């Protein structure tokens, strides 16, 4: 079982990598103009989807989706976390709703999964490095969440690959890029880069699946960076456009800011726990030799209650802390906040959200895949994965950040006119909802929203791509009335809008967003009831739901309803080819049904949905119970409490009411035209400007981060040349001056003077001696005689003495 699942997923994971390599080396030669690259990439991801689906079915075959269908889980003879025979965690589902009400005393169905560990398979494929007891590996951690995410990612990616075959067809031949004007005033002509697009997509799919399957947090980080670089390539796909390459840089650098925090989190874990593994490190015989990080924070013998891991306490002692308990707890918080920092970057949460709207410079399939459904959701996924390690203090931070993001982004989306930017801000806002849900203790709610959102948001993006493809503009002010020209796009997009709004008949049935959003709001209300200080967050989230409905329908009305505002563009508009609209229909189907209960008997019970049940299987051990913070007075209420009738109903009605309000308002403004948008805008001019400028975040960051950094860089560079080098050169010139002075005074005057003096004397003597050289023979004879006599005298008298 374990080997089947891990091998299936391994192949599904590596297929896109193989596709990447093939296209990298043979891209242009694959078919005419690289058309074959699309088939290779699509085949790879499609194959991945099939394998994922098989593994999902295998999982369900072993574990079932509910207790009723699968009473005898003991037959599954696989190894689970601590070799217990896994309990079936879904008794509660069979007991159905009424068990909720009478289970309050012992944490509802908490009895189902607080005692038995959840099922997860883990192991290592490959050791990257190891030092003594420390080891960094490439491995897998497979639980229901992994399998679900795998299936979701490969399904959406397959749809988008198909879609991109149509959307990118321009790249098959030479392209004239109308957004780039050269210095000679012409538009840029360039070769098509069809195959390259699919090459990047394949690399992206590989990296993304790497995050999903990662067996340890270091591996997550590795693929975290890789999806970052893929995102960089894909945002900057139109490398000739300055805006695109700038947006790509911005995305990568802002993500690196998040990674900075993530590295700190990794260090805090690594320095004290000595492992990154989620599940644990095994020896060759498959025995766990070192417990994973989750088991260290939530040990089975403590009933999976969160406590500071022993390694952190030890580390705190080594640091010489007076109160190791406290410092150890702080270390755990630092680790949690650090990891969350990475998620803030990747999932574009406040305050690192600024890169995502700019990332819309990339082609629309990229926006659909990378920047809505998968990569940006990886942050949420990691929060979900890392959930057992988060203390209530960290969770509260997550909730606050999510709450701020969901509201801020929703307000900005109201005023945006670029269709993709509206969707980008909507993505931010929805990611905020997910983070918020996780932060208030709604693990299943957050993860469910992650999955439902992936479907409806990729659908919305692809619909917008279809529109852009037809009218060649992103501006909604130049659209209108397109419903008549492209009905399939219009109505699938309507499905997306309804899903994101959370449309449904309260307490009975709804689209996918209805289930996930209700669950989030219910848990938020539940949290607010337990922590009265923070109940404001529920109201913000509920208000956000109204805004969501408003901006989504504003988008839909502006695009598809009313009279065409640009007749020329309208005339040229047409429905997209089949390869593009087929994926829309597929995704619309999922956007409607993905979270719906499959069981007719329990149809009105949202928790009876197979998706919820599967997620419930993946819930980290011990997070189904209440737990409270040490530093802050926070109680994380168990999620099942939010299923209580009064909470769920209240939240559901509020969500329905706010969403309807938003929808009505949008209809009044943009459909029935009861109110004139222009007048409303001028009425709230300051607010409009504030929103229109995106809360001035870009300007703020420019002023407080970017400029000072560049200034600092300049200072350092100047210091190098004016400071250090000035000193060095000064020293050199001092030395030179000194030596040349030395040269002048000592050498020239004393040494040279002496030498020259000697020379001059010698010369003078020579001149003087020249005088006797007359050339007259008689004179010489006289000299010789005198000389001889003198020598004789000296020899006779001088030497004898």
């Amino acid at each position, binding site marked *: 079982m374990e080997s089947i699942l891990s091998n299936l997923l391994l192949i599904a994971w590596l297929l896109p990598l193989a596709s990447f390599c093939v296209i990298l080396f043979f891209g242009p030669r694959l078919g005419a103009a690289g058309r074959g690259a699309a088939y290779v990439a699509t085949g790879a991801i499609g194959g991945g989807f099939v394998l994922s689906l098989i593994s999902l079915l295998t999982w369900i075959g072993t574990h079932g989706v509910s207790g009723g269908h699968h009473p005898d889980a003991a037959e599954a003879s696989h190894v689970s976390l601590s070799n217990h025979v896994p309990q079936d965690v879904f008794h509660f589902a069979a007991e159905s709703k009424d068990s909720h009400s009478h289970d309050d005393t012992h944490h509802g169905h908490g009895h189902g999964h607080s005692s038995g560990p959840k099922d997860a398979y883990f192991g290592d494929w490959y050791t990257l490095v190891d030092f003594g007891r420390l080891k960094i590996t490439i491995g897998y951690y497979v639980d229901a969440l992994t399998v679900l995410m795998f299936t979701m990612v490969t399904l959406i990616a397959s749809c988008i690959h198909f879609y991109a075959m149509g959307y990118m067809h321009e790249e098959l031949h030479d392209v004239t890029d109308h957004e780039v004007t050269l210095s000679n005033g012409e538009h840029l002509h360039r070769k098509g880069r069809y195959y390259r697009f699919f090459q990047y997509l394949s690399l992206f799919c590989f990296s993304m699946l790497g995050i999903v399957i990662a067996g340890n947090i270091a591996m997550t980080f590795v693929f975290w960076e890789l999806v970052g670089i893929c995102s960089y390539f894909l945002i900057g796909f139109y490398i000739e456009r300055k805006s695109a390459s700038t947006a790509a840089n911005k995305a990568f650098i802002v993500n690196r800011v998040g990674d900075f925090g993530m*590295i700190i989190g990794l260090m805090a874990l690594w320095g004290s726990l000595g492992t990154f593994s989620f599940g644990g490190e095994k020896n060759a015989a498959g025995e766990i030799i070192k417990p994973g990080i989750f088991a260290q924070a939530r040990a089975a013998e403590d009933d999976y209650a969160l406590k500071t891991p022993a390694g952190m306490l030890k580390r705190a002692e080594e640091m010489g802390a007076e109160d190791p308990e406290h410092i150890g707890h702080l270390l755990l918080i630092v680790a949690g906040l650090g990891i969350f920092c990475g998620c803030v970057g990747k999932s574009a949460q406040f305050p690192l959200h600024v890169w995502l709207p700019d990332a819309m410079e990339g082609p629309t399939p990229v926006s659909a895949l990378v920047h809505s459904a998968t990569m940006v959701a990886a942050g949420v996924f990691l929060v979900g994965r890392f959930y057992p390690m988060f203390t209530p203090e960290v969770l509260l931070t997550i909730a606050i950040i999510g709450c701020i993001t969901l509201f801020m982004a929703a307000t900005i989306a109201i005023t945006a006119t670029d269709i993709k930017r509206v969707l980008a801000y909507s993505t931010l806002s929805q990611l905020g909802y997910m983070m918020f849900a996780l932060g208030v203790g709604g693990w299943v709610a957050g993860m469910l929203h992650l999955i439902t959102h992936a479907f409806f948001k990729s659908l919305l993006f692809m619909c917008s791509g279809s529109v852009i493809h037809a009218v060649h503009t992103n501006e909604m002010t130049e659209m209108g009335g397109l419903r008549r020209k492209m009905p399939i796009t219009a109505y699938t997009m309507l499905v997306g809008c309804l899903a994101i709004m959370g449309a449904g008949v309260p307490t009975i049935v709804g689209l996918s967003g209805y289930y996930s959003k209700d669950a989030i709001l219910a848990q938020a209300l539940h949290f607010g009831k337990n922590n009265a200080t923070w109940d404001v967050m529920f109201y913000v989230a509920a208000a956000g739901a109204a805004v969501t409905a408003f901006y989504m329908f504003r988008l839909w009305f502006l695009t598809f309803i009313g009279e065409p505002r640009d007749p020329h563009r309208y005339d040229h508009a047409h429905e997209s080819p089949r390869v593009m609209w087929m994926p829309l229909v597929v995704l619309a189907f999922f956007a409607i049904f993905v979270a719906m209960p499959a069981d007719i008997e329990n149809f009105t019970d949202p928790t009876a949905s197979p998706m919820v049940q599967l997620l419930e299987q993946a819930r980290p051990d011990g997070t189904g119970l209440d737990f409270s913070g040490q530093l802050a007075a926070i109680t994380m209420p168990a999620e099942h409490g939010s299923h209580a009738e009064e909470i769920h109903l209240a939240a559901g009605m509020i969500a329905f009411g706010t969403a309807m309000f938003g929808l009505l308002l949008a209809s009044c403004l943009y459909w029935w035209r009861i109110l004139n948008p222009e007048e409303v805008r001028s009425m709230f001019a300051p607010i409009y400007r504030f929103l229109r400028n995106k809360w001035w975040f870009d300007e703020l960051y420019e002023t407080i981060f970017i400029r000072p950094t560049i200034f600092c860089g300049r200072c350092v560079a100047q210091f190098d040349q004016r400071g250090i080098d000035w000193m060095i050169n000064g020293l050199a010139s001092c030395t030179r001056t000194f030596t040349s002075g030395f040269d002048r005074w000592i050498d020239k005057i004393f040494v040279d003077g002496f030498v020259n003096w000697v020379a001059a004397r010698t010369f003078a003597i020579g001149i003087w001696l020249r005088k006797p050289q007359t050339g007259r023979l008689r004179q010489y004879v006289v000299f010789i005689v005198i000389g001889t006599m003198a020598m004789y005298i000296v020899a006779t008298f001088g030497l004898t003495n």
Partner: protein
Amino acid sequence: MDNPYLWPLTMLVFFPAAASLVVLLLPRDSQELIKRVSLFVTALVFIATVVMALPGFTGGAHFSLAEDAVAQMQSVFQVSWIPSFNIQYFMGLDGISFPLLVLTSFVGMLAMGASWPITKHVKAYCVLFLLLETGMLGVFLALDFFLFYVFWEVMLLPMYFLIGVWGGPRREYAAIKFFLYTLLGSVLMLIAILMLYFNSDIRALSDEQLIAAHVVPDQPAALAWRAEKVAAADLPSHTFNILALQQLGQHTDQFSKSAFTESGKSIQWWAFVLLFIGFVIKVPSVPVHTWLPDAHVEAPTPISMILAGVLLKMGGYGIIRICYPICPEAAYDLAWVVCFIGVLSMVYGAFAALAQKDFKRMVAYSSVSHMGYVVLGLGVWSAVSPSFNGDYWKMGMNGAMFQMIAHGISSAGMFFLVGVIYDRVHHRELDKFGGLFAKMPVYSGMAMLIFFAGLGLPGLCGFIGEVLVVLSVWNFSIVLAVVSAFVVILTAAYILWALQRVYLGAEYKGPHPEALTPITPREWSIAVPLCIFAIVLGVYPQALFNYMSPSVDQTVDALIQWQERQVAEDVAGKKKGGEKQAVTIDERKLPKPGQQSFRVPPIAPSASWSPSRVTPDPSYPAIQESAVEKNNPIALNRGT
């Protein structure tokens, strides 16, 4: 002594120098021939170094991966060179030097291949280049400190001329700056060498230690050696043997005497500082790095590759081979300084790179930043009492060593790639490029890859070194860890910004647009091996660690054992109170074989074992401590 490796290693090192004589004889006009011969020579050297690593290769020098031998010095030989000063012609290989040796020959070969555009005085260029290669190979192989110094200097002169003659417009300034900086470093090193030499006495070593230091081959020889020494009167036996100096530094207190005054810093403190400055100039670290940008900018492309790819590594090599093992006490005391300098270089280099307008200068500053990781990783002495868990430090040191190799590949690649466009358009201003992707797609793709390797992208070589170093810092100092993690943002910023300005964009903005032609096969064949290594090392780092980590781990273990002994002796000294054992040199003469830590006097506890590192014993009275300290040389220099 039987020296089977004498000729293979000698030939390896001096082959380029000998070949340079042949090159001298070639006719001056046949430039192509001269270059081909030189390339052939460097390629042969590279093949020779690679062959050494092949398993099962016998005959000649080899580097064995056999379980028992891998951490040790291998292929060692020694021949007496200047007997009156105990100077030996002494070389050997271990897992620290071997990867650097291969890197040297590899980058040397590629740099020679990159020398084709050079047309001025080709013969002289090639001769100097080959001499330079001999110097570089020698530095990594020498195990005698004097020999090491000689090679260090041998390498300096050709480099000076290569920059000064074949460089850019400000070549003379750059060459002199390079020369003086390095010379300053070598002078300091020379002082330290002499300090260590005159204070060493290998008679104090036990038999095991003598064998480990390759002074004697085995036990009987050790006895004979000792008898000989006793016979030769009572003169101290000084040594330049680096391995012996390591043993002395770790097992005796010979370098712990105070250097100048009664209570001043110890010999090893001074030696460490002098050596460290000497090496750190080469690394280079802030604030002694300013020769690097000028030298890089002015040097011709292949010389920049050598500079960044190999020369900088000598600094790191010196620190791990010489500074730390010989002067452990000083290293422990100054660990903070070392790490601080590392982090400072990382941050400073990254900020400076951000502001550069010259492409090559930017790459040069990125080298400063990346080499900061090396210094940091070497310095994170995080093993603490009572567990003395050295795993994190091992990880840091391995990471640092890996980073040296990785940087050797990525920075050589970056300089080469900058050189490729410089050869075409003759300028390097970042703002006057753009759109190269369209004109030179293959080149741009490889450039992206190499620059991303520098950025530390997973899957490429830069990531492993950086991440291991950064992760190892936390247990040493949280502040430094956070600052070093911060550098990842700056690195991304300066590299991506440069890539955007050079490779992306719609059109080229500088002069000579017509010269931007796709890369030639020669250029391609230089860049591709670099790219392949960047990927292989990133995906399969064990390929390198298999060779490297046993030796690195052994170095760390030796240091940690030293530290454990210190702490144990601190405790023992505390228990014995003020009891001292006066030990004279005579007692050392015939130590019992098998004794590991021979003759180290019990050490008084010292207050500088700060609480964060060593659990202090509060029961120990402070007054007693200072009283003991006065008479104990080892305890003297820890400061309080």
